[in-house]
Structures are given as C-alpha cells and as structure tokens.
C-alpha cells in the first residue's frame, strides 16, 4: 500500500524530474568544466526554456498560438531595468520615470517579484480583452499587442531611451540562477497542467462546444492560462536582462518571438517536454554549426563552413521536422514513468 502511494507520487512528479535532472547534470558539467562561452550558451538555453515553457502554458493548453507574449517579457525586463539599473545615468536620461523609480535602486529579489507581477498585470489587462476572441482572431490580436508594446516602448523616449540600448543592468544570472528559473517554470507549468484549470482549458482546446456544454467557461479558463504564462514569460524577460546587462526594445520583438515559437513548434506545441526538448535541440544544433563556422582544427587542416550556414541548416532542420513530425519531436506525449505492474491504468497524456 505504502509503496503503491510512493509510486503514485513518483508518477506524478516524474515528467518534471525527467526534464529537470538532465538539465541539472548539464549545468553541473558546465560549471565544473565548461568555458565561459559554453556556460553562457547553457545559461542562454535555460532562459529560453523559461520563455518557451511560459509560451507553452498558454499555447499548449489553450491551442491558441500567441505572438504577443514576448511583449510581456519586454515589459518585465524594462521594469526590472528601471528598478535596478544605472543609478548615475537614470536620473539624467530617463527623466520621465516617477521618482520612486528614477531616484531609487531596489534589491534584485524584490525587483524580480515586482517585475513578474507587472508582466502578470499587463497580461491580465490585455487578456481581459483578447480572451473574448478565439482561434485565428485571438492569435492575430496577440500579434497586434506585440506591435503596440514595441511602438510604445520604442518611442517613449523619456523612460525607455527610445530604441537605444540601456547598458549597465546588474548581471547576477549565472548558470545556476538560470537553472532555478527553468526549474520553477517547468514546475509551474506542470502544476497548472495537472490542475483542474489546466484540464478545463485543454478540454476547451479540443472541443469548444462540448466544453461549454459541460459548464466550462472558455473566457475565464483561457484568461488564467494567459496571465500565468505572461508571468512566466515575464520571469524569462527578467532573467534575460540580468544575464545580458543591456536592454533594447528590439531585443523583445519579432526575432525573439519567432525563435521561441519555432522552438516550441519543433519540440511539440502540446507537450511540456516538447517545450524543453525544442529549446535543447535547436540550441545544440545552432551551437554546433556556430563552432563549425568558427572553424575546427583537424590535424594540419582547418575546416570551417561559410558564414551563414548555421541559419540555413537550422531552417532545413525545422522544415524536415515539420514535414515528418508535424506535431513536433515529442508529439503530444509527456515523458512518463514506464508502467509498473499493479499501478493501475496509466493516464492518457493531458
């Protein structure tokens, strides 16, 4: 009886463990043996995991592709910048900030919490309007939200310095901090996924009419998913800005939107494992080709591929994956504990 309960718990947390433990192993290796460049690549991948898992919480569960979430990362990142950045420059160059931001600098913990909350508020405000839509209309309107974010922040000179980079944000994000963020994001996503709200949202994804007939509110369930994913993506934005030390509005625009979406699609849009696998696969492939471009020494010979091959191979790989596995690498599956005899029926993948 006792063992059965243990296995039941293990079965519940297994999909998280199986994602987190390998990530930890990579981080330990990077910390012990990796060069600066390798550590930074791993850190960057972990931050991308936070972003992509954040996207997954909404996209995977609701089935609505959102192009606007990177805007929430940008909103959180800018708020973190205002709270922590450059005490010398801020009063002079960001004159439009209220005094409590312009003249004060805050601790990193409170900054992260507040910034994530701000991203949540932004997601709530936008979600209140957009979640009334469904399907393609919702997707397109999220893209419009991203454009609005970009236009406002790129031209709000007195607080964002326009399109210029703000340099000098404290950089505390090491590979371990990024790992913490990724683990947190994965845990939140999993908890949401197995909660009743997650189940309701997925039910609405699979059959709107049937879900409504069962008394599920499309609007409120999607709104919860939207706000939660906005906050996780906001966390990704905060980590990103404290990793790079610089911020510019163009960093939170179409490029980041499409690379994170591509990672999610390649991994599998409807699986949490897919979100993580997509980031790992695309980052690894990009890194291998980057090294090839820089040149590899083979004895006396030096091989290097022409500049630009990385993008070409990445594009070809993504096409191949989408042609042959159109649900992404993981399809709709999670990585589940292998069935033990006597533990009853395995559940269907959520």
């Amino acid at each position: 009886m006792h063992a059965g309960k243990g296995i039941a718990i293990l079965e519940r947390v297994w999909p998280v463990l199986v994602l987190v433990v390998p990530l930890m192993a990579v981080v330990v290796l990077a910390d012990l043996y990796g060069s600066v460049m390798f550590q930074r690549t791993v850190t960057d991948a972990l931050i991308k995991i936070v972003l992509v898992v954040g996207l997954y919480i909404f996209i995977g569960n609701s089935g609505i592709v959102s192009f606007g979430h990177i805007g929430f990362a940008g909103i959180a990142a800018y708020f973190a910048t205002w709270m922590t950045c450059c005490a010398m420059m801020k009063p002079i160059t960001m004159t439009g900030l209220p005094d409590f931001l312009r003249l004060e600098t805050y601790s990193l913990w409170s900054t992260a919490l507040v910034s994530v909350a701000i991203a949540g508020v932004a997601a709530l405000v936008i979600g209140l309007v957009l979640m009334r839509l469904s399907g393609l209309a919702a997707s397109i309107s999220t893209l419009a939200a991203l454009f609005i974010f970009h236009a406002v922040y790129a031209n709000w000179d007195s607080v964002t310095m326009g399109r210029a980079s703000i340099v000098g944000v404290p950089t505390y994000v090491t590979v371990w901090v990024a790992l913490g963020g990724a683990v947190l994001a994965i845990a939140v996503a999993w908890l949401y996924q197995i909660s009743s709200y997650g189940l309701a949202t997925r039910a609405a994804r699979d059959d709107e009419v049937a879900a409504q007939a069962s008394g599920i509110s499309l609007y409120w369930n999607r709104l919860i998913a939207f706000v939660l994913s906005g906050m996780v993506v906001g966390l990704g934005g905060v980590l990103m800005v404290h990793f790079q030390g610089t911020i510019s509005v163009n960093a939170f625009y179409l490029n980041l939107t499409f690379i994170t979406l591509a990672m999610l699609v390649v991994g599998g849009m409807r699986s949490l494992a897919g979100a993580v696998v997509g980031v790992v696969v695309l980052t690894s492939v990009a890194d291998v080709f980057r090294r090839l471009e820089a040149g590899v020494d083979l004895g006396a010979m030096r091989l290097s591929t022409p500049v630009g091959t990385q993008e070409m191979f990445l594009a070809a790989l993504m096409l191949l994956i989408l042609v042959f596995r159109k649900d992404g690498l993981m399809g709709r599956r999670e990585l589940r504990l292998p069935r033990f005899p006597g533990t009853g029926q395995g559940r269907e993948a959520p």
Partner: protein
Amino acid sequence: MLKLNLPKGATLAASVSLTAMAVALPAAADDPIRIGFAIAQSGWMANYDAEPFRGAIMRIEEINEAGGLLGRQIEYRVSDTRTDQQYAATVGQQMVAEGVDLLVVSCDYDMGAPAALAASQAGIMNISLCAGDPKMGAQGVGPYTFTANNSGQTEGIAMAEYATREMGIETVYILEDLSLEYHRSAVAGFRAAWLQDRDEASILGRDTYMNDDPSIASQITRLRGLDPQPDSLYMCSVMPGGGSAIRQIRAAGIDTPILGCTAMVDNYWLGAVPGLTNFWLPGFMSLYGDDPRDEIHEFLAAYEERWGEAPGSSYVINGYSMVEAYELAVSRAESVEAPAVTEAMEAFTDEQFLAGPSTYTPEVHILLDRPYLMMNVEDDSFRAVEIYRPTLIPDMQLLFRIGQ
C-alpha cells in the same frame, strides 16, 4: 572555444612576424600585448566593422615592425559577434576570460556596448572602432571605455556650420529618419549649430520617416507644399532607406542641396540615384584620389599593398587611428593597465593622428571636434571639397540629448 580566426594573409603575416620575433628576441622577452577584437564579421554590422579592423591591423603591423610597443610585440585575435548583442557580450566575456590588454568592440553603441561592458567590469581597457554615440564612454559603459570617432552630434554640427557659413544657405527643411539613435543625435547637433547663425524661423519644417518605409511620397508632398521652398534639405540616414529617399526626392523634381551625414559616404550606393548632384556630407577621407592630405594618399597606397585591393569604406581610417591613439596612450603611460592608459588618453589634446587631431577629456570619451573632409557628389562619385573643423563643442545636454 574561441579560435584564432584571421584572414589568410594576416595569419601568414602573423606567423612570419612571430617567427622573426622568436629569432630576434630571447625567450625571456616580455609577453606580447594582447588585443582582442570582438567585432562583427557577419550580419549587417560587418559592413562597418570590417574595414576599420583592417585599418587597425595595418597599424599593429607597423608597430610590430618598428620594434613593438614598450618593446613588446602586439598580438591580436578576432572573434565574430554575428551582429548579435547577446552574442557580443558572450564573445567579450570569453576574450576577457582568456586575457586581453585591450578589447576592441564594434562600430556602434548598441552592438559594441555589451562586449565593452564585459571588459569594463573586468577592469580592462576597451575602445570602439567608430561608435558615434557619446554613451560609448564613461557614462554609458564604464570608466575604461572610449570610442575613436566624432559624436553623431558633431556630424550634424559640421554640416550645419558648413552650410550656413561656407555655402551661404539660409533656410532648411529637416527630414529625420527615426530608425536609429544615430540619426537623432545628428539632427540634434544640426539644429543646435544651425541656431547659432540663423533663427528658428529659418528651419522651415521637420518631417520624419522610417528607414524601411517603402515610400516617402506623403513627406515629399508636404515638402512641396511649402511656400517659400527651403534652400536645402537636411537628412541623416543609412542605406538602404537613405538612398531610396534621396531618389524619391530627386524624382519629384526637388533639386535643392541635400545635406547628409557621414554614414552615407562612399560611392557604393550611388548607383541607386544615377546622376545625383548637390549632395553634401562631412566625410572622413576621400577614397577617390582627390583627398587634400598627402598622408591619406600614402595610407591608401599602403592599404592596397597590404590587402591587394582598395578599401571599400572610408571608415577604415578610424581603425587605424584607434590603434594610433592606444599606442600613444600606452607609450605615455608606460603601462597597459587600464587606469594608467585611461588617464593618458583623457589628457589627449589635439593629438595628431592620421584621421585628424583628437581630444579626449575625463568626462568625454568621444571626439567632439576632429575635422571632417566635406564632400559633394558630382559625376556619380563623391568629391573632396575641403577640410572643415566644427567650432561648436556640444555640451553634456546636447551629447546625451537631455530634454530634447
């Protein structure tokens, strides 16, 4: 891992000079001075980084041939930042971890600052090849950060002063490209200098566009509706939008002088506007055989000998003079430690480099009054007109565009 990634000729030359050094110097000689270039070799920024990088290599090789700096040879290596801010930070940190005495970063604040920040935080000297944003300095990056170019504001100042004082232009219409901070800095400088000699009413209007706008027809319509028509048009832009805008302006029959900024120098884009004339801008040097300075002709000849082709961009001179500046500062400081070199550079007053006299101060780590070669387009080529040194020194308010 970071790999030495040099052009073939440079690798050869470096290995030859290293061999020569090994023969000439005893093994116990001082370690070489190490310069790391964290610059773009791919992506759009590569167009602006590649030539200054070659210029810098030329000066480094000259120094090495002449016995080195403080008796030490200079070793350099380069790593591609791929025109990516985040990757630039990574490359910068990697180079810092491997140990460099000077980190040279991209020709732009947005692209260069992440790498410069890595060096600055590690207490290592860092210089941008040619960023024109004053934030590329003590205020925007760190105390050991410099840039080897005039500020964007200075470009606007030079053009405005030259237009009002030498060309006798009375009125102007400003067309501002909002896509880069650089353009806005130049326009701010232009306005400030223009208002020295003329009143606000002589600026007949101001309009904006974005570099990737396919058409500026509505801006042109507003411009044509003005009465009286302006004597001149000031526009600071970069390719491809700049060329496209000029073509549209000329096609609309507007033949007034167009005053531009340095990023539009050199002939590579003139094919887009056949028969363009009366287009003025402040440039660095003429690549077309008519530069008034003899030393420029010598430099161009040396460049062709070293690289087997003529330079594609006049930004090349900034890289050369960047190394000249570092060389002078190190030899005066008798050290490569960042605080000492910084102090020596901050004391620069009209030091004569190939690109012109250069001044830094403890507050301002960007050049403010290095003379320009004013140029005009005729017969489908830029032509040197004369050297002009701007007189208005922008203050901190103008440099950081406070309250504008």
